[in-house]
């Protein structure tokens, strides 16, 4: 598979190559939707079966940090969209600038997430052998008809870590892609004619944002009123 400039040998034209990349990316995102879909379903069914534990678990999450992070991620989506715009209009400096901003915001998001995770570790709310719920919480829950609260709370936290962890993993991959783009962009590889990689990574980044748009209310918001 030889390659001439930006064109791989098995394609006839750049347009064909671009179209293939875009189509491939969209199809990939659909598989991601289904991938997360399975977990969302597991979350829904388990939450329905254990409402008390899920409500109490949800209330242990730090809403301020969660909301802040939502804002950060949305902002990063905005800067990403601007990077793509800069690509289309061929403003090379701006591409680099917006990509760096996106990376920074992504970094902040992951940083805040680490803080949240650390707090959970401190309070022994990480599923596993050291998982521990204070006795008064258990009895409070038992009064609300959930005597097996510890097990059910563990279920909430395993879903919490599973879902946010998978999301964070996607962010890390996205950050890697951004770094790769920034390096190319600094070499001036992207022009108004050729900016497919920026556009593709952009689609991916927005998708990861959308996942969070759903994770935030499902994990942090529902059942707040019970407090």
């Amino acid at each position, binding site marked *: 598979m030889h390659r001439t400039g930006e064109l791989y040998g098995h394609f006839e034209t750049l347009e064909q190559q671009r179209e293939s990349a875009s189509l491939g990316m969209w199809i990939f995102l659909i598989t991601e939707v289904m991938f997360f879909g399975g977990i969302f379903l597991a979350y829904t069914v388990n939450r329905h079966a254990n*409402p*008390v534990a899920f409500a109490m678990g949800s209330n242990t999450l730090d809403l301020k940090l969660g909301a802040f992070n939502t804002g950060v991620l949305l902002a990063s989506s905005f800067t990403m969209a601007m990077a793509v715009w800069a690509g289309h209009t061929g403003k090379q400096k701006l591409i680099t600038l917006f990509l760096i901003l996106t990376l920074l915001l992504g970094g902040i998001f992951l940083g805040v997430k680490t803080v949240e995770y650390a707090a959970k570790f401190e309070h022994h709310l990480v599923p596993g052998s050291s998982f521990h719920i204070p006795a008064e919480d258990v009895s409070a829950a*038992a*009064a*609300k*008809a*959930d*005597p*097996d609260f510890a097990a059910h709370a563990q279920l909430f936290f395993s879903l919490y870590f599973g879902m946010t962890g998978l999301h964070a993993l996607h962010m890390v991959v996205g950050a890697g892609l951004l770094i790769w783009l920034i390096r190319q962009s600094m070499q001036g590889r992207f022009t108004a004619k050729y900016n497919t990689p920026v556009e593709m990574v952009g689609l991916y980044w927005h998708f990861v944002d959308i996942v969070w748009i759903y994770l935030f209310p499902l994990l942090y918001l529902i059942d707040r009123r019970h407090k």
Partner: protein
Amino acid sequence: MQLQNSSILPEQASNFAGGVDALTLYILGTSLFFALLVVVLVVIFSLKYRRKKQTEIGVPVHGSVPLEIVWTLIPLVLAMVMFAWGAVIYMDFRRAPSDTLDVYVIGKQWMWKLQHTDGRREINELHVPVGRNVKLIMASEDVIHDFSIPNFRIKMDVVPGRYTTLWFRATKTGRYHFYCSQYCGTSHALMTGWVTVMEPAEYAAWLSGGAQDANPAGAGEKLFTQYSCNTCHLPTGKGRGPSLVGLYGSKVKLADGTTVQADDAYVRESILSPKAKIVAGYQPLMPSFQGLVTEEQVLSLTAYIKSLQAPAPASEAPAEAPHMGKK
């Protein structure tokens, strides 16, 4: 063991068997018709249109819309008949009648524990009277099992964490194999046993003979005191909880305005997660007994609650039915 009679179908020994077999024969007939149709056509075409000359080509027939419509609609209609007929049998299978003789079944790796309402226990054996509607109320202590009686043409999974039920009316006395049909680990193939269908008189004799544990309703009554259920559930209805007399089988009005049938699953849920359905007019005060009571104890409590029938309509119990509970 029952020997198979000369017909290709296995012995039919329950109310479901005839219907299932009839439906099977209908589908078999339809299938044979289509299979023969296709095979005969393929053979005819192969003979008639076999290549006679090396460079010959076939007549370019591209298709025919009317034909496509015909062979879309005919299978569709036939398949819908299958669906509807099967659905009728299935609804019957899933909805037990109300006058059943109940047997509690607990599956565990790798045995079946069965208990009759009057306390008679069996392992890997089930005795039932011919002609009576019998309902198995089943729970599992570990993995998923499945209670299956081929001669009755029925089976149902036994799922941990909840009840499933299976009902039938045996139509022929004899001994019939039952199997665990859901793969459940190493000795899955040994989790089998026999259903013995007896004449009612014989059955009554069998029931009264043999070792008899305290009947489950009696055991349930003890538990009812032991777990202080009686402190809230006064028979007068003046306690913190509703009176449970006459509850079983009645319709319960819930706080959210809906009504539910008070069956085994409802009673079980009321004990294990009371918050799920709140009775209208009461506060959600009842604690859950999840983790405190075992599956068997839940069954006993249920049997006791069942025995708390309001004194008035005493007529419904058929003569040969084992009496349930005391007083």
